[in-house]
């Protein structure tokens, strides 16, 4: 499973939306994620991938794709394998 698929599963579970509607262009608002959903998704992703996503970085995410790209860029090579 790719990083994107794993994050999509996490976000879909937290927001209780069908994961098929979550695209890289989807904004958190479009997938009905409130501020608590976003924090819980950040925490779940951090724990899954063993990384830390600072709030000041997360606030820059315009859509799901930005979130995925950030994680892809910060997960170590070992974890990607």
């Amino acid at each position: 499973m790719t990083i994107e698929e794993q994050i999509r599963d996490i976000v879909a579970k937290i927001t209780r939306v069908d994961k098929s509607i979550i695209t890289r262009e989807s904004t958190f608002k479009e997938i009905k994620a409130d501020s608590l959903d976003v924090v819980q998704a950040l925490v779940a992703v951090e724990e899954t991938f063993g990384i830390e996503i600072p709030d000041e970085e997360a606030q820059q995410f315009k859509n799901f794709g930005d979130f995925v790209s950030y994680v892809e860029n910060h997960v170590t090579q070992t974890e990607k394998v």
Partner: protein
Amino acid sequence: MSLEGKLALVTGGGRGIGRAIALKLASQGADIIIDFFRRRDTAEQTAKDIEALGVKAEVVRANVGDPAKIDEMFDMIGNKFGRLDILISNAASGVGRPIMDIDVKAWEWTMDINARACLLCAQRAAKLMEGRGGKIVSISSLGSRFALPNYTIVGVSKAALEALTRYLAIELAPQGICVNAVAASAVETEALKFYFKEGLVKDNRQATPAGRMVIPEDVADVVAFLCSEEAFMIRGQTIIVDGGTSVGLFALAGKENNEHG
């Protein structure tokens, strides 16, 4: 009042009220462990500011809403320091919603961080305070006893926190541990700017007999007193820091109360 040689943990100590408390305790000579969750940058800045006061600072990341993270944090403190003298249960979160929009997820998130965390931290802290006395101060808010719009979950969690403070004060007293709470009205912090923006709180200077908003340092001064030996006979109390706002019903007054500020 001196806290020289004491070790204090301030949950949520990187910013706002927690930062002011951390700096105040440090200014009195205590070494400080700052717990943070979402903002490493502010926690590390606060640690630098603490070290500039000539004491030691340690930064630890733990979401106190997660019992496993609390355990990891206290395991670190136990292994590295083997002791603790002061616990400030300050970290807080909350979901501002009308009652009809509150769901289980928002309730649990808020209660876990604002109320349960104090219990779990106090349990672990009490063991590290064994044979040394100790001080525990929880940070509450006026929402525990007065209803504010969209503040239900936080208010209820703070009421639970204050009740827990009383029980802790009684049960930990035989170990020489003093437990109290400080409850503030709206305090000028980054968090308050959010409440202003959302229209949940307005500037309350005109309803404050003391003539200005409460600032984080006002809360920190009272916390520091409760951590001193001078406060030894104060147990299980919630000290209100609000410039007198809650004493009167100024919302009903025909003219502005504050005419001196």
